[in-house]
């Protein structure tokens, strides 16, 4: 697995440098303008972008043909991709916590620690967890297309729900009644379930694949 992650990093090498530069610029800007909450959002987008690049590079070089006959299980190949996402999620969460510790006042100060720890992993893995099985099923290009279609469906669903004001206010009311701690716990559960289901799906798809 170390070898696979190393390979991914090599494919990303140039991109990683570029992303770090962009990251630094965005950070600087955001801090100057006081929009600190923008920073954690970078970690929501970054994994998706990097994942796209890795899949693109793998598709181009057909690296699976080389890896699968080698001393590795197909499950490990899939796991290495998730490990990458989970590592990014960990960094994102730690980064947000660091941000909270460093900044006084502002919106971050108002959000309790446990809520950050609960929401960040969900936010950072959500898109990847949906996208990965799609990419394994349809390939990098088509996977992204399917994802966009899915995105529109969800968007349409939301705007439908949005137009149904009664439902929203009811939900908000319910949430307000709930303890934030319970919500956090719920979110952790959702994150774990989502990732477990996503991994199981990807693994099932990948293990049946022929090259």
């Amino acid at each position, binding site marked *: 697995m170390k070898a696979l992650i190393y390979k991914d990093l090599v*494919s990303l090498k140039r991109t990683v440098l570029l992303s770090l530069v962009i990251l630094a610029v965005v950070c600087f800007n955001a801090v100057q303008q006081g929009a600190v909450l923008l920073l954690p959002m970078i970690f929501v987008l970054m994994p998706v972008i990097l994942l796209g690049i890795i899949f693109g590079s793998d598709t*181009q070089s057909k690296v699976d043909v080389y890896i699968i006959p080698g001393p590795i299980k197909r499950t490990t190949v899939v796991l290495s991709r998730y490990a990458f996402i989970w590592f990014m999620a960990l960094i994102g969460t730690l980064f947000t916590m660091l941000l909270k510790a460093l900044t006084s006042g502002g919106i971050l100060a108002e959000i309790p620690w446990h809520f950050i720890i609960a929401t960040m992993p969900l936010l950072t893995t959500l898109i990847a967890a949906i996208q990965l099985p799609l990419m394994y099923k349809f390939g990098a290009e088509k996977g992204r297309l399917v994802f966009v279609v899915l995105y529109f469906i969800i968007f349409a669903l939301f705007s439908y729900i949005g137009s149904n004001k009664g439902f929203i206010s009811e939900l908000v009311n319910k949430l307000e009644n709930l303890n934030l701690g319970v919500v956090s716990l719920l979110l952790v559960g959702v994150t774990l379930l989502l990732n477990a289901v996503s991994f199981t799906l990807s693994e099932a798809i990948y293990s049946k694949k*022929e090259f």
Partner: protein
Amino acid sequence: MQNAIELRGLKKRLGSFELGPLNLSIPKGCIVGYIGENGAGKSTTIKLMLGLMKPDQGEIKLLGKSIQDMTPEMKKDIAYVFDDLYLPESMDLESVLHFHRNFYGSAWQDKTFSELNARFQLPNNKSIKHFSRGMKMQLGLALALSHGAKLLLLDEATSGLDPVIRDDVLDLLLEYIQDENHTVFVSSHILSDLEKAADYIAFIHKGQLLFMETKDDLVNQYGITTLSREQLEEIDDKAIVGKRTHQFGVEVLLKKELIPNDFELEKVSVEDIMVYMIKGER
């Protein structure tokens, strides 16, 4: 003696193409040329052996072990080279090496790799993207030979390479099987000079194995000659494997055992046999 490769009733359907049922036993310690036209099923066979595809039916044993039961550790005993490297193009020699150290763990032999690398003189500072086809194949072969594998599978690896590089490959293969536990399986639509070193020839045509024989017996069974049409009529039809009719005679590939002894026949190459057999069928 244990077989290095054993295929039993292997079947695979891909669209309108059907491979098998294929039965093939390859003893260890030899070089086998697996020949046939493009699309005859050579690559499919190798992909099935390497687990890139799953058979519809049948069993595949490599080095005495059924491939489904192989652990990653056992797979280190199998090396493979394809017609392309299939590694990310942004990698250079250094990162390829680093990747393989991690990929093969303790089985990786840095010393063997650097020796082969020195022999091929592959460029240190270029990414694979800028490697020529020959360099990619040399690198692929160097990588394959550097983790102590006992079975080497080459899938069209030398097709389209210049004669000098093919000559190097011939030497490397002969060096590799100095160890009698090593086995080489070369699939190619054109064996050319690699034919010299081949112990056995297996011929696949339209998904079916037509024969597997020692190369010496195979080449000695047949002969080529040019006859006039009248002479051709006198020959037993069964003796004629294939023929090429031209304005000034008929070139025929004949089975030696079915024709009179006093016939002057020229030696044949494996390629001649392949071409005449396929054309003879049409």
